């Protein structure tokens, strides 16, 4: 037990030293980098920006991501369900059928609302 504790302390110190060395190296690299104001400007082919680029814009793919999550959740439930199905049989089958039916209604609703039309 004592030996284990010594080893873990040594490993901890090695990790700490490595992290410190890495951090100092990155810091030094930051000093050497020629990060002047003209270099920090956005590249617009010689043009200049009139407004800052910090802005909110419409993330149009978000309905797609919601559909993706719906399908993904379905798959996530199906893996543990497969184990239960071996034990329970038809009962588990019916339960999964109900779950899938509810999910499909959601997808059909989304379809009617036009979420699959890419714009």
């Amino acid at each position: 037990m004592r030996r284990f504790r010594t080893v873990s302390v040594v490993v901890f110190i090695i990790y700490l030293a490595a992290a410190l060395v890495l951090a100092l190296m990155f810091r030094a690299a930051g000093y050497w980098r020629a990060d002047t104001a003209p270099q920090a400007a956005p590249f617009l082919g010689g043009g200049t920006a009139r407004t800052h680029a910090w802005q909110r814009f419409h993330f149009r793919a978000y309905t797609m991501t919601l559909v993706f999550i719906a399908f993904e959740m379905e798959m996530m439930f199906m893996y543990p369900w497969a184990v239960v199905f071996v034990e329970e049989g038809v009962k588990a089958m019916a339960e999964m059928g109900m779950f899938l039916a509810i999910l499909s209604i959601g997808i059909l609703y989304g379809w009617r609302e036009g979420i699959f039309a890419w714009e």
Partner: protein
Amino acid sequence: MGVNLVSLARRAPVSVYPCIGPEMLPAVEALWQARGIRLSATPRDAEILLVAGEIPDDARPALDRVHDQVPPPRAVHHWAGDGDPHDALVALRDRLARGEGLSPDRQPDEPPNEWRGKGDNGQGGKGMMGGVPYGRPMAMTDDDLRDGLALDAYSAQFGPFAPMLPPGLVLDLTLQGDVIVKAAVAAPPFPQPPEASRPAACAARLLRLLGLDGPAARVAAGRSPNAFFAVRAVPAGLGAAAPGADIRSRLRGWLADEPGTYQAPDPAQMLPGLEWHEAVLTLASYTPDALRLACLAAAEGRAA
């Protein structure tokens, strides 16, 4: 071993960012086929700034900005379009490796605009809105063309040395995300010789924008693109100036070596409503000549 490494490094192609002046587009585009030279898409990716031809005075500040965006150690090569610049570029890179011929920053190391914000962290005004941190306003909400969800609009000038736009063209754009909502032409493209408007040259330019460098090189060399999917890489119906006259049909015509008598519309009218990639493809689907004429005619129409 050290000597070998140096000679190995010298064998790598010289990466240059081209700033293309008037009458120089065909000469610079010929460099796509040149051995030992790589035209980079951004100054960050370049070792040497290639200034091709005489840059007009009103484009000089833009040239200085692009120059300063090539990371040091950098060098500048002025090229008048005569002969193969490869040897000169390699010699220049060798000098760079020895720490000679460095081109220092042309702009002062200061923010482009003066700080006029109120907050400690650059916020300037209230929350994300308002204020002028570093003398530049924060993006404000603007109407959206597509669904009326008013979010922030970004406005900036693009060009004259943007790799995806015709050289010399300066566009004043306001974007909502990637959709152009307002467009104005601040400067027309530079005049280019007739070779730049050859069907093969135009087709190669469009294919290069699509990322099809191999077919583009074959078309530029006067051969078949050998890529049946090339035309289909452009979305159908995009950039339709008239029924049946979209980008696909123009590209198909160029690939069949037909110059086409396409008159370009005024970019300020043509671009709003298009996404960035659509706008770039639409601009490249007209010959540089036609685009320049359209910009000049629109400017004349505004002056009259």
